[in-house]
């Protein structure tokens, strides 16, 4: 078992078109680092300086990690993580 990660369409160029990838369990931040090893460049699109970017929402199963423990949130095998860029503008 592993962790399933849902990749949003704008980042699928970096995952060879895959909308779902697998990675190892750990904290949100270690998951982002692992993803970046598998798919170079994806890390900086999601986070900056060890923090998730303001306009990126990350969900552990159905819960926003901002309502859990943010970057420290623990992700277990079998969990599903979704990376969802915000929709915003002026």
């Amino acid at each position: 078992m592993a962790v399933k990660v849902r990749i949003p369409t704008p980042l699928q160029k970096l995952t060879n078109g895959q909308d779902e990838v697998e990675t190892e369990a750990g904290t949100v931040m270690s998951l982002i680092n692992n993803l970046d090893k598998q798919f170079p460049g994806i890390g900086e699109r999601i986070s900056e300086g060890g923090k998730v970017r303001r306009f990126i929402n990350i969900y552990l199963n159905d819960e926003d990690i901002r309502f859990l423990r943010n970057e420290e949130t623990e992700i277990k095998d079998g969990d599903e993580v979704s990376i969802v860029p915000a929709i915003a503008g002026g």
Partner: protein
Amino acid sequence: MTTLSISRQLLAEIVTHCREVYPCEACGILAGKNNVVQKIYRMTNIEKSGVSYFMDPKEQFAVMKEMREEGLEMTAVYHSHPHADACPSQKDVSLAFYDDAYYLIVSLIHESPLIKAFTIKEGMVKEVEIVT
């Protein structure tokens, strides 16, 4: 050339939403397939502002899940400009992450609402024809 296909009825629903939340900006998602809009989702602008919008992340997550389950794509994103013309602002361009979706803007500064659609890819804005 690509076009965005949407019925007059759905366009009217978008305008109704934009007028209802005036003077704040309205925002929403247009779900469909192959550039044809089938369904409109009104979303909450959590910034409640007349010059910016930020879609409620929880609602956005739920809608994206529903679209996926129904086999629909996020064909377009719409929002209103209560006090500006129907062209993307600098903020619209810099925050346009979904570069495979169309961005529809409804301007309310004219006598009747003006609706235009755009693609925004890597900072490049291109107007797209709306076909009803």
